């Protein structure tokens, strides 16, 4: 382990009897807090599920968001969070030397289990990142479906890269580029604060921009919640196809009933179905090839590789290597050859991992395209289980009253 703790500046030298204060090393997070966090997660998830599915209370969900923002956001300072835990899990899966903390594992698994049964209730009122956006989403505007669909590819790419970088011990990019953690902690590089502030400003109109167009954990929730058997419904009883909810969702996550909708010729539908089915492996292979060819470029996310490039530039081009990492390297006694050999080793790891990353991206895109060609009969307006945040905005648009027992 390399520990780079240091004083901000050398301490002033006193000639008097001044006694320097004792070093205060940050203590590890108490085990009690880890259990508390997990317990709170389960309780809040359960209450949110009840509010979304049974109580159907948008107001209740907003109060839960407020609580989660206060507890998981400002009080626990955004750590640990389920979104970042993706990296701990992938690091643990691909590196036998890393032992994943139990809390990280639980924060990763529990929301997914809830999603399998009840949909994305985690997004509705538990995730502090979702909560801050939900509470500041004041003037919601819908994006065109095409734009929404294109931007929705970003979380897949982000997830793939996050897993790749953590599995290759390069970086935890989700934590590094978490736009809201700086706000929760009231301390972050100002570029990240500005990024977070811009997201919130944009989110006033384009609600939940991080959840929709960046969140890598959202991809997993998207996939798992498609299997949810007891998902939130727009109507508390039978849909009367009144269409009042058609524009209710700012996230384009309502699938309309296809009653009275023009449909394509069956032969055209069949042709598209076969074509896109065949395209799935083709796109997956293209993804694998693309990412494989990018592996040396992507490996630049690894600090050793980045440093090796800087040192090589100094050797070959005479461009002085002046970064902190380069200065530390020069004082470390590690030789250039060792560094370059480590660089090659890292690139080799990337070459092994990137085809799988590309395969995942290609498959996601291929299956996504294919699913658009599949026509299912729908007689009611219902949420798109993958994309619905279970936020309950649509409840009040439905004039149907719950069935009386």
């Amino acid at each position: 382990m390399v520990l780079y703790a240091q004083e901000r500046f050398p301490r002033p030298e006193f000639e008097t009897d001044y006694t320097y204060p004792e070093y205060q090393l940050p203590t590890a997070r108490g085990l009690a807090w880890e259990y508390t966090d997990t317990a709170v997660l389960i309780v809040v998830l359960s209450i949110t599920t009840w509010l979304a599915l049974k109580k159907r209370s948008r107001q209740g969900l907003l109060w839960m968001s407020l609580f989660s923002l206060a507890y998981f956001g400002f009080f626990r300072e955004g750590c640990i969070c389920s979104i970042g835990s993706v990296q701990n899990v992938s690091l643990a899966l691909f590196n036998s030397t890393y032992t994943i903390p139990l809390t990280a594992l639980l924060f990763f698994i529990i929301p997914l289990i809830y999603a399998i049964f009840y949909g994305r209730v985690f997004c509705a009122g538990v995730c502090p990142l979702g909560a801050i956006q939900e509470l500041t989403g004041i003037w919601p505007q819908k994006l065109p479906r095409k734009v929404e669909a294109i931007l929705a590819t970003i979380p897949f790419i982000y997830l793939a890269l996050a897993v790749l970088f953590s599995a290759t011990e390069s970086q935890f990019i989700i934590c590094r580029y978490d736009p809201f953690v700086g706000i929760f902690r009231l301390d972050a590089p100002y570029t990240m604060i500005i990024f977070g502030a811009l997201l919130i400003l944009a989110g006033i109109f384009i609600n939940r921009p991080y959840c929709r167009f960046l969140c890598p954990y959202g991809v997993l929730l998207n996939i798992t919640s498609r299997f949810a058997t007891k998902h939130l419904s727009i109507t508390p009883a039978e849909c009367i196809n009144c269409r009042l909810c058609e524009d209710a969702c700012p996230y384009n996550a309502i699938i309309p009933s296809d009653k009275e909708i023009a449909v394509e010729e069956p032969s055209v539908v069949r042709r598209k179905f076969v074509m896109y089915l065949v395209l799935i492996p083709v796109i997956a292979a293209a993804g694998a090839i693309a990412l494989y060819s990018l592996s040396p470029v992507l490996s630049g996310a690894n600090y050793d590789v980045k440093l090796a490039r800087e040192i090589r530039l100094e050797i070959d081009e005479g461009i002085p290597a002046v970064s902190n990492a380069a200065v530390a390297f020069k004082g470390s006694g590690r030789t250039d050859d060792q560094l370059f050999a480590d660089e090659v080793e890292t690139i080799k790891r990337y070459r092994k991992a990137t085809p799988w990353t590309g395969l995942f991206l290609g498959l996601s895109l291929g299956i996504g395209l294919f699913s658009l060609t599949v026509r299912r009969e729908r007689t009611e307006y219902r949420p798109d289980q993958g994309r619905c945040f279970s936020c309950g905005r649509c409840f009040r648009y439905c004039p149907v009253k719950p069935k009386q027992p």
Partner: protein
Amino acid sequence: MFQLRKVFQILPGKTKTTLSMKPDEKDIKLLKFISQVAAGFTLIVAFTMLFSLIQLKTIDPLDNPIVASVKEQYDRDPSDAMLAEQVRAVDLMARRAYFSSRWQVETGSYLLLAGAVVFIICQRLIAGSRKTAPVKPGEKPDLPRQNRFVINGLMVTGTLLFAAALISSFAMRGILPDTLNDRRLAGGEEKERVRSRRTGSTEAFMADPTNYPFFRGQDGRGIAGGEGYPTEWDGAEGKNIKWKTMIPKMGKSSPVIWGDKIFVTGAEGKECEVYCIDKKTGEIVWTVLAYDIPGEPDIIPEMDYDAGMAVSTVATNGTEVCAVFANGNLICTDTDGRIKWSKNIGLPENIYGYSSSLIIYDDVLIVQFDSDEKISLMGFDVKSGALKWETPRQGYPSWASPVIASFNGQPHVLINSNPYVTGYDPVTGAQLWAVEAMYGDVAPSCAVNSSMVYAVTDYAKLAAIRPGEGASIVWEDNTFTPDVSSPVANEEFLFIVTGYGDVACYNAQNGDTLWTRMLNEPFYASPIIADNMVYILDRSGVMHIVRASADYQLISRSPIGERADCTPAFSDREIYIRARENLYCISESE
């Protein structure tokens, strides 16, 4: 006035239920006004914070040109008290400016958050009050058409991403290594590294329970043999003090022991002396004068104000007793005080004065010679004084002392210096390996165990080095760095004591910090591990005895009653401490 009740009715989510709960026009105006004030306030705070952040980026107290300029003036004339005062004043000013900017940013972040929250609440209330009932949309969406658009959009995006990936991978080939060649190289390097990992010495080090022949004991490792050493004494009250003897001349050299004899040195002016003291009684058995040696310089070298010329510790092998002084006088006697040979090896003049101690490997007396003019390692025949070899070293003068260790059957002399930590063959003087790891003034000597060398100095870092061919740093840390005292290690733990009064215990293998304590008094003497305890002598003369374990267990604190900077010696269940004026023998059998 807008009622709080309404806020709770509207925020969050009840906005649609009844119109009667909506704020009226007057309330909306008020909300708008509050919202505008909050927005203005938030913007002002944001800009102030931005300004403070820019200041933080630009005002670095360490790089402040005014501080640097005044310090430079002071360095040219350190005796100028006015300048010293000025340095303090500008340094304080620069630090204050920095921390004031930090305070502004920290306070601003709370204000910013408060302003933003007020703004958002007002906006939510305004928005909630304006929402209208949903209307039935017009034409039913043409889903197949929309899907076609989405598919086309996704296909174009996918194609663009695929093309971008291929183009960028092609365009960035220039910055990549020749992986085929490098792969071969990497394979070779890796094998070499694996090999060197396997070649770590496992030769067990067993310290002698009686003889403590060099600075920090056998091989200069800081580990004492034997067991049953005292843990409690009081120099002022005489508790467990077997004897105490005043050393005639001052010195900072530590005692060394062979059999029943203790050897120390002292000096006043040019008069350098070697003393032999009876271990049982504390009587000075003989004194050898080590001055007026041919070649000795006329001038007395400038030394640290309370160091004197007798800083280097004697080395003995039971037959010869060798001592070196800050004027370059090197003398060798037998254990009865008969001079066997003496010479002056040149004036090792440097900024703090010469302080490296001697060490003997077989029949080679090893001298680390560090002056402003040259730095080298010399090997003398301990019997005759003939120079067997001299190896010039690279870098800057060091005040550390050589340590002997063996890795994979290869004996090493280990030198800690700026910038290299180096291993030499003690028989030939050939350099075996070097790792660039230190900077600044280096005084602590290396610590070793069977597989690792630990080097450290203040304001630089602690580096754990895997020795041998292709030596490299395994882990490093810069939290606790001593300026004078040397670290000590066994197979499990590494102990550091600093000039600030810190004690730190590391996992010797992976560098994890196991425990730390601030003991308030600074340390110059080096810690010694004896009988599974660490003896840590602070400058006030108090010995702190802690268990050599993964957690902090204080066994006792025992004062000697005088200030003390020399490293204690251990022999046959007794401890010998050279304090400012007296040499003490501590024994619990008394």
